[in-house]
């Protein structure tokens, strides 16, 4: 009896492994998100005044650089440019570090910190991106929503405008657009 059960367990464990391809053309959620961030640098327009600090670089900023998405982002932007600007990542510790950031990325767990930062961000041409669906409704500019097995940006156009930023038509076409403060 016990032998049969044990056999069943082992069969059960091994069966899907030997019968399932390990990888198809699927990507991890974090990979797709990181590539979205990379694309935002391209498909959103910043005014020149956003680059007075470091005219030659585009800065991605985040509070935590150990998250998997940031680690992937660093790989993605390595050696890449947006226009003539070199793409770089910078970790921020507090609001004073925001100077010179063009894009700030918030993980779900950090979004409570956003509220305090918002007034500082509003007039400073900084794009805020969060990794949850309701980020754009809760004070941020772009959230990322998962529908079935696809990821889409959720954009708060009004807030983008207030920050002096403009999303390209291409990006708006495939994004969900939300209003409201």
């Amino acid at each position, binding site marked *: *009896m*016990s*032998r049969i*059960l*044990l056999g*069943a*367990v*082992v069969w*059960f*464990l*091994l069966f*899907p*492994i*030997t019968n*399932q391809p*390990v*990888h198809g*053309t*699927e*990507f*991890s*959620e*974090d*990979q*797709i998100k990181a*590539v*979205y961030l*990379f*694309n935002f640098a391209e*498909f959103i327009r910043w005014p020149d005044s956003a680059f007075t600090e470091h005219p030659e670089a585009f800065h991605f900023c985040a*509070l935590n*650089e*150990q*998250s*998997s998405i940031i*680690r*992937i982002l660093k*790989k*993605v932007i390595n050696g890449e440019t947006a226009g003539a600007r070199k793409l770089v990542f910078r970790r921020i*510790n*507090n*609001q*004073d570090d925001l100077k010179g950031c063009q894009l700030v990325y918030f993980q779900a767990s*950090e979004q*409570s*910190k*956003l*509220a*305090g*930062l918002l007034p*500082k961000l509003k007039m400073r041409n900084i794009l805020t991106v969060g990794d949850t669906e309701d980020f754009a409704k809760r*004070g941020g500019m772009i959230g990322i929503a*998962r529908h079935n*097995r*696809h*990821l*889409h940006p959720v954009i708060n156009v009004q807030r983008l405008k207030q920050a002096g930023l403009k999303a390209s038509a*291409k*990006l708006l076409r*495939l994004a969900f657009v939300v209003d409201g403060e």
Partner: protein
Amino acid sequence: MIKKLVDYLGSMGIAVSLIFSSVMADEEKSLKQLMSFSLEELANAEVTIAGKTLQKATDIPAAVYVVSQKDIRRMGATSIPEALRMVPGVQVARIDANKWAVTSRGFNGLFANNLLVMMDGRTVYTPLFSGVHWDVQDTVIEDIERIEVIRGPGAAVWGANAVNGVINIITKKAEDTQGMLLAGTFGTERGIVTARYGNKLSDDVYYRLYAKYRNQDNGVLEDGSKGTDGWDDARGGFRVDWQINTENRFTVQGDFYQGLMGDRANLLTKQAPEFRATVDRTGDVWGANLLTRWTQTLSDGSSHELQFYYDHSYRDSWLVKHQQDILDLDYQYHFFPLTRHNVVVGAAYRYTDFQNQTTSLTANAGLVRPKNSQDHLFSAFIQDDIEVIEDSVWLTLGSKFEHNDYSGFEVQPSARLRWKPNQGQLLWAAVSRAVRTPSRAEHDAFLIPDRVVQPGVISALKGNRNFDSEQLIAYELGYRFQPHETMLLDFTLFYNDYDKLRSFSPVGVSLPSQTAPLAAFVLEFDNQIKAETYGFEMAFDWQPTEQLTIRASYTYFDIQLHNGPNPADMALAEAFEGQSPEHQVNLLSSYELTPDLTLTMGGHYIDRLSASNVGSHLDIDVGMRWQVTKNLNFALFGKNLLHDERFEFRQVTLAPVSTKIEREGYLMLELKF
């Protein structure tokens, strides 16, 4: 059969390593492909399995393991000790239907006292013996978000008693438990009904209420007859979460419970000629607690947390009858004073009021004198996480300082170094000092174990006001490897050097008298034992396909005691050495046949416990969960399938009569609307 299992595992290992190499290359390739995508293609890219749960704990420089709500459901766990069974380095054993022995890294027993257990920030141990009454630690199992287990000393932040581990049971926020939940578990050994309702008072204020009743059937005695250790528990509670504004959050929660549990114990009596009897008795417990927590997160990322709780508990059991009231105030501040510094400081005060009485049964077996006592505990801690080399090396330095009424002032520092050579790998090392402060019993109790040393002579245990803290210097080394986002391997090696462990020293003989008809060797609590423990813990989490999840763990543990000069110490040393398994293997796998139908299988092997006279055993659990409709979930579990009944643990001294755990089946129904 073990050999067979090893063969199978071996072949699985080869399969795993073959897959590794291809997976690593695949990741780079898929990223390059994604980067070449147009926006439309990106929006259409398919997301693979969510590997998120695996990543959470990867950066922590300690032996961390997280049991998620998903894991709990996969196991079909209906109590907290059951949910802890899968954790590497942790030993969970049932003594009887209502008593558990739970420990991390050795020294297990009903009165295991090296573990700090918290529920939503509330410490749930009793300072009477520094242990946990697992029978009263419960909540709506469906409302548990996760259980975080840190093996090894967590003393720098958590404080006394976090000697060999910290278990933090975290329930969901009220906003995540909205609506009605009706759940029932019905089976051969257990019956549980739960009702929980959640709603909101406004857009910012959410609440939930719950009520729960549990009945556990009697276990089986050594001779095969039914025991008398059944257990009933009724409880209710609430939680309110108020998001005052974007910076401030306020939580209030509370519980009330009452339980009745069967105890059978061998006790000494005044009845000649045996002077001992087996007594059945129904224990009676109740308790209530109330906790409030205020959290403020400031714009610069810093945060304040202020927590206050009150906890009342009453227990009238086979050994003691006692009541305790705890008031606890905690404050924490998390901030970034300099770049590369991440600092947490905190301070706490705890007031404990004890009231002890003799039970009708134990006459003079479990006295604690003075009956009433008030304890004050002051503590403070500081911890700084320093980024020594950007993105690569961090050093965490910290220390806890406390003053208690038993051993006075205690300092518990720790240093942790972590190195992240690249993404997906973490190597860490730690040295920490921790103390297990004296419990009330060790200072003030007078206990008579049921041991007849020789005809007409018994032994008695006496508290010692000079009993000092047990001390530990722990050395740990860990390596975490995430070859792919669906896979995590975690290895920990540790060496613990203990000093001043509890021992018993003879202090005299008391002669028979009118009130005490037997002569007694009187032993006093002392600190004469030194010990070394070492072990290896491994966890393996893998989600090879969207459907299949595997969590496996292996634990090796060994202990060497260097006892004092007394024969009593020798006996104690043997008991310690034989109460922890040398090898322990756990496996939990679940397979989603369809999105609505999941099969789970769990297996475990636990080495023998020589002191408990419990042999090694292999056992298997199976389960099936079916989401019938959006609102109705149905599950069927079979547990301990390989044995009709078996002992898991037998206490050596001061012991209730253990019962055997039986093969069992149960049905779980869950209705949500």
